[in-house]
């Protein structure tokens, strides 16, 4: 593992826009943040805040056209991924930075068995592995799938939503990446399954020590896993800092409002506080 104080990821003034028939949509409007090895950063924001585009941009997975990288740098282990050649970029994807997505049911290839989808991830970056099947089985057990040997032969549609997400995690960890990007990993899952997947991610973080970037709209799930939180609103980072500080002493009015309007179990408040968008716009100096 690299020495821990060196920054793993440094995003500087990243700018990405979508050019559609209705004109330019500034999805990511000049954001900067950085991550240390082993750190967990939660990027929280509502729909349209640009959080997913940011995550996907790390390894240039945002389809362009219609998107275009207008500016900024993404320095990962000292090199700007925006400038990497396709060949170099492919060596980063899956080996250094890997992803899990929101809809596990559609993110897995429906006509391939679990075994071959995980094996492919291993063979892409780890030619040295002799017994790929055994390694695949180890990974499935690592992510908490019982009787992994049996499950290897299944197709994605034969597994439950929670199991499919565990397979995605196993596939992402196949080449022990330095950074795991989780784009709304539990949004499509029931609350009980969501708790299990978050528990699993926390476990893997301690066991494997890889950095995690967690993208979500749900503030509640970030509290006990994230080291830092970045709050995004319409393509900008409006708040960025250690978890406890952001949750308990939010600076920006948007963060304050967002935290207050979440209904909390047992709070017995009669009315929820709503967001006054005009006030936020003013604060953003738009």
């Amino acid at each position, binding site marked *: 593992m690299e020495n821990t104080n060196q920054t793993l990821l440094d995003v500087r003034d990243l700018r990405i826009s979508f050019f559609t028939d209705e004109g330019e949509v500034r999805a990511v409007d000049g954001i900067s943040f950085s991550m240390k090895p082993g750190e967990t950063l939660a990027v929280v924001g*509502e729909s349209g805040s640009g959080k997913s585009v940011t995550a996907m941009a790390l390894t240039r997975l945002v389809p362009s056209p219609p998107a275009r990288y207008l500016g900024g740098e993404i320095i990962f282990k000292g090199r700007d991924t925006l400038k990497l050649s396709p060949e170099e970029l492919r060596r980063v994807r899956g080996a250094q930075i890997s992803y899990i997505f929101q809809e596990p049911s559609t993110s897995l290839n429906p006509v391939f068995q679990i075994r071959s989808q995980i094996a492919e991830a291993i063979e892409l970056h780890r030619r040295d592995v002799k017994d790929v099947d055994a390694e695949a089985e180890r990974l499935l057990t690592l992510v908490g799938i019982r009787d992994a040997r049996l499950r290897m032969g299944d197709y994605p549609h034969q597994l439950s939503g929670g199991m499919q997400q565990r397979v995605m995690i196993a596939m992402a960890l196949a080449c022990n990446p330095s950074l795991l990007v989780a784009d709304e990993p539990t949004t499509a899952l029931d609350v009980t399954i969501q708790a299990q997947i978050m528990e699993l991610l926390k476990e893997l973080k301690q066991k494997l020590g890889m950095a995690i970037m967690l993208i979500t709209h749900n503030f509640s*799930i970030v*509290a006990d896993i994230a080291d830092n939180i970045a709050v995004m609103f319409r393509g900008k980072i409006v708040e960025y800092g250690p978890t406890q500080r952001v*949750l308990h002493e939010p600076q920006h009015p948007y963060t304050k409002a*967002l935290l207050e309007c*979440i209904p909390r179990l047992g709070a017995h408040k009669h009315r929820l506080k709503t967001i006054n968008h005009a006030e936020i716009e003013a604060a953003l100096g738009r």
Partner: protein
Amino acid sequence: MPLLEVKNLKVYFPIMGGVIRHKIGEVKAVDDVSFAIEPGETVGLVGESGSGKTTIGRAILRLLEPTAGEVRFDGHDITHASERELRPLRKQMQMVFQDPFGSLNPRMTIASIVGEAMKIHFRQMDRNARRDRIAELLRRVGLKPEHMNRYPHEFSGGQRQRIGIARALAVEPKFIVCDEPVSALDVSVQAAIINLLQDLQEQYRLTYLFIAHDLAVVEHISDRVLVMTQGKIVEAASSEEIYERPQHPYTQKLIAAVPKAF
């Protein structure tokens, strides 16, 4: 006298299979459920996906035929009532839906969406009276009346839910089934819709069956909460009791799974 009474409600869907597509089994979506709702009360119905909560909502409004049991609304047994018998009752019970993009007819203007309810149930109203009523309803749910000639795709998710609520209000109902009305919305917009529903309840003395999978939202808005899993109601109690003293292991598991933010 409760506004709505459900006794031993069962809704089974046949599973077709085999060579000649005969019934080889059945899905017990709602399996012997009983509860009652008093006028002016908000009863929360919480459960994970596939627990059968939406099916109950649809069975009560007779959007599907119950397999067994009894549904009494305002004293009338509507379990197997014909469409003609149901028509007057339709005026008194309405529904707000989850999917803001699917709940409004994309090819109809807001005026005709909200107006249609009145055309069916208040035939004696002429065009101008109807337009005034629509304007008043839109204002009431926080939208500008001059947008009544616009089409659904021109509005945001939150605005569409408000239009759906205006449509439900148009027939001056007593009882509204809110089927996951805020699940598809962002948190900030969610809060505004929940407040709106509460205001409307106070002003029009409405009764709600509030269906959702988010325990915190249900607990916030409901007087009483029913917890449901695999087609059965496993626990029913006031919203404070459910949170402080959950009895059934499933409820305990549900509450434990809700992430404690801070």
